[in-house]
């Protein structure tokens, strides 16, 4: 009987050697381990043998059976691995090829800067308010303490639509409209398009402004410095040096212009800052009591601060844009960079 086992082993070895496919291996498996295989019949016939021979032969036959099982599994596993590798190789994937990219548009830089600034102020409890772009002289000038023939009208080259209607030269009229509509305290931000009839290398006849107004019982000039310091540090970084210079706007008093340390040269002086190391970025001040009176607030009861900045200017400094006209040319080579 043990010779029989040896014979099976020899034959199996030869078959295994010649197997080339998984299918071959399954056939070998069934030939040597199947119900009708010689080994199975041999194991089945063990019960007819005498006890001691049964034990001896039994262990040999069972050892052979498990050995054959293991060897077939190993061979199968090896065969499967080879097949997978062949399949992968056959597909020849070069994953360094670029992916399929869905087209992605970009936001206009003016929108980006506007959203950034409005986010800062809505975070501080300011409401964002809109108003008409074609305004009445009253809201754009008179109510803001710029009566007819006031020399400050020279600061605004105004487009007129009729004697009394004009393209707003700043978004300040929205402040007046809001004060007429709402009672203090008030915290509003007015972004939008404004117009001046001026067109050269550094001016476009339309540009964007953001103005802020805060009215309460006790707002001081030092508060104005604090609020704008928050804005500038959020926009240009905590390290940015800031200076407030006296200036003049008919609707604020005291008025100031705010300079930041030049973002191009870090204050050493360059072409962008005309060698001064400083860049003017916004105008501000405490609300002139006359404006409160014109808007129907009691200047004895309320105080306020106001500020205004040009969005394009901030965008030019933030993104290093050197020509304001690029904003309105809408060249894709420009737009796609934002």
């Amino acid at each position: 009987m043990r010779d029989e086992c040896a014979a099976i082993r020899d034959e199996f070895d030869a078959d295994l050697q010649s197997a080339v496919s998984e299918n071959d291996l399954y056939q070998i498996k069934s030939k040597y381990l199947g119900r009708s295989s010689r080994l199975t019949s041999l194991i089945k016939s063990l019960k007819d043998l005498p006890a001691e021979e049964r034990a001896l032969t039994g262990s040999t036959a069972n050892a052979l059976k498990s050995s054959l099982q293991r060897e077939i599994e190993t061979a199968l596993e090896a065969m499967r691995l080879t097949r997978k590798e062949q399949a992968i190789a056959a597909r020849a994937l070069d994953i360094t090829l670029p992916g399929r990219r869905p087209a992605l548009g970009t936001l206009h830089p003016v929108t980006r800067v506007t959203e950034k600034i409005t986010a800062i102020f809505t975070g501080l409890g300011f409401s964002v308010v809109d108003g008409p772009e074609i305004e009445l002289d009253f809201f754009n000038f008179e109510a803001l303490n710029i009566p007819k023939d006031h020399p400050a009208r020279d600061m605004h080259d105004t487009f007129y639509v009729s004697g009394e209607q004009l393209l707003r030269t700043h978004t300040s009229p929205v402040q007046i409209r809001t004060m007429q509509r709402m009672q203090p305290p008030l915290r509003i931000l007015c972004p939008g398009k404004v117009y001046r009839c001026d067109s050269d290398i550094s001016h476009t006849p339309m540009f964007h402004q953001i103005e802020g107004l805060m009215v309460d019982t006790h707002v001081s000039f030092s508060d104005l410095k604090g609020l704008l310091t928050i804005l500038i540090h959020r926009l240009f970084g905590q390290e940015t040096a800031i200076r407030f210079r006296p200036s003049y706007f008919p609707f604020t008093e005291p008025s100031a212009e705010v300079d930041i340390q030049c973002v191009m040269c870090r204050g050493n002086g360059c072409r962008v800052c005309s060698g001064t190391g400083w860049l003017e970025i916004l105008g501000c001040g405490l609300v002139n009591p006359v404006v409160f009176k014109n808007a129907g607030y009691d200047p004895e009861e309320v105080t306020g601060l106001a500020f205004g900045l040009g969005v394009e200017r901030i965008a030019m400094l933030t993104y290093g844009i050197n020509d304001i006209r690029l904003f309105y040319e809408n060249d894709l080579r420009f737009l796609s960079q934002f």
Partner: protein
Amino acid sequence: MLLSIRWLREFVALEVPVQDLAHRLTMSGFEVESISEIGPQWDHIIVAEVQASAQHPDADKLTVNSVYTGTQTHQVVCGAPNVRAGLKTALALPGAAFPDGLVIKRSKIRGQASEGMLCSSAELCIGDPDGGILELDGRLTPGTLLADALDLRDTVLDISITPNRADCLSVIGMAREIAALYDLPLQLPVYATPQGGPACADMIAVDIQAPDACPRYCAAFAGDIIIAPSPLWMRRRLENCGMRSINNIVDITNYVLLEWGQPLHAFDYSLLRGKKIVVRAARSAERFTTLDNTTHTLPAGALMICDAEQPRALAGIMGGLDSSITRETNTILLESAYFKPGSIAATGRALGIKTEASQRFEKGVDINGLIPALQRATALIADLKAGRAASDILDHYPAPIEAPRPIEVSVATVNKTLGLTLTAETIACHLARLHMHTVATGPGALAVTPPSHRYDIKTQIDIIEEVARLNGYDTIPVTYPVVPLCSPERNITREVGEQARTLLTAAGFSEVINYSFQDPNLLSALRISSDDMRSDPVRLLNPLSAAQSVMRTTVLGSLLNNLQHNLRANRCPACSFFEISNVFMKTPEGTIIEKRMLAGLTYGMQYTDTWALAGRDADIFDIKGCLETLLNGLRIVSYRFETGSTEAFLIPQSSMRLCIGDTVCGQCGTLDPEIAEFFDAASPVHVFELDFNILCAYYVDHRSYTPFSRYPAVQRDLALVIDKTISAADVCAALDSFKNSLLKQWHIFDFYQGGSIPAGKKSIAFRLIFQSDDRTLTDAEVNKIHDKLLASLRVQLGAELR
């Protein structure tokens, strides 16, 4: 304003470096825009003595000169007739550069070496261009730099003066301010009163008929006038401050204007009739010729200076052609008057004239500065020996303007407003430097009287600003407002705008922003018909150009311009743009309404050809799909597209109206190829323009959850053949109307016509999803519904299975 530092130092003993002054001025409200050094432009020009001058051997009009410059002699070829031995003149050495770009080099002129150029005063920009080379004082030392020899050096600051500080539009005004900033005394000279000269009373009588516009009129006379060029120092000062030298008398009036800020006008007395000056308002449509030989039709109320017979000057703006100073003038009347700012501003604007004088009157001059200005002018006439000035000054001031009243100032308010803790003494001290008189009227209460030249100071807040300025804005601390929390007002338009931008950029559209103005021709290019509201845009009264003369009534035109720009400048193969902006409409009643629009455009290849995808031109379904995504993203549910647009610029068969609820929200479609070609587009252009406010109105912010089925879904495809006349929308509507709760979803997955499909028919294939909320569906159940659906489509649409 241009400020000469040397001129300034005549009135304030300022010793700090110019850079320090510029910084101090900038930080106190007088922004210094530039600092120019006068002098370096003559760096290579020196005093030279012509030692010998000989005829050029080969040129009739040239001389060859031997020129001595202290240590050496140069040979210089010259063409000036006045060159002669012994003449001291200016020599430009090699390296000297002139404003016209000429740079002096060693050269040969007609075979003769020339080591420089002898200069005329015109070439050196130092005065009258009367030909010939400069003839210098014989006492000057050869070899000295010309700038030093003639004392030409100076520093000029360009200062931006805010409109409220017209009192600083003069050397004295700035000196006063600078003295205050540095706490130095202001040194005003006392001018010697000229002796003799004609007495005013015998010469003229003044009659002010418009006292509101002209409350004060002063005048002085000078006789025996000799019109001549001004001395070099005066010419240089005027030119450094941006004025051209004319002659001694005109220069004196300009010099006083720059120094005192008070415009003067010189009349030729002999041309004034009737020994009379009448100040009156112009009669309606009165005409007047100014000295620049322009005839104006005057606006009503324009203030005129007249003699007994006729107008002689446009008050405060410009003199008349036939009373101005000439070479023959013997006696002059110098006018120094106060004209009300509003009157001058209105006339100046109406006539479009701006002069040095009108700019100062418009902003206001010091009513107490009229006489000092005349005194300065007559003193200069005497100094320059330009004539015999009278000691006498005529002062017609019938109703003196009230002196400024004291302003009550509370120390507590000053400190509360600024966030400072100043004492009453410090405040008074700051104000005293500005010539404001302060009296303590009680504890913490001050009464402050501003000087007459500070007519901008009227209320307490004006005083507070001055205190802040003098104390320095940098001394004010940084604090943060302490205010109650509040909930900001919602701004739906901006909220929806932000979401729409996010959705559209994610769909590949880039945002553009265009001018609100437009070329009116664009409207006809878009075939906007004359009965369309958009055809009659809001017009600007003063446009920059015809191409920007009307306000946009559609945003699409701008997008097409953007497309054209990118095609021309950039040859871009594809682009997708959108813009959210206002358009402006006129109602039939003439009221202007602003409407926010969302417009978009897509053109060209949807994908660039890549290894993975073949590119293809965008079609109408690309832009329609974008709109669907946008609407779905905004959770707008009740929308539908209706076939055919009313826009003449769209192809009728390839356009639609977007309706939301009962409203037409906008139009979408393919641009007429002729119009596309007009904008240089070779492939189809697809556009949309929507009323943004309607999107906002239907925008749904609210989200709610509906439970979904956990049971398996069954998918069935249904390929139908229908008549061509039946639209996909009809089939979809039929599917919608097939009310069966187990038919959960469906979409069109195939569309086909031609080929095996009979003529007049088309095939649409639907993928149907059946699912139950409470059990697993059996095939038999699904088959039953499927058959029922098919039967219903057969009946409704005559559909057959493919």
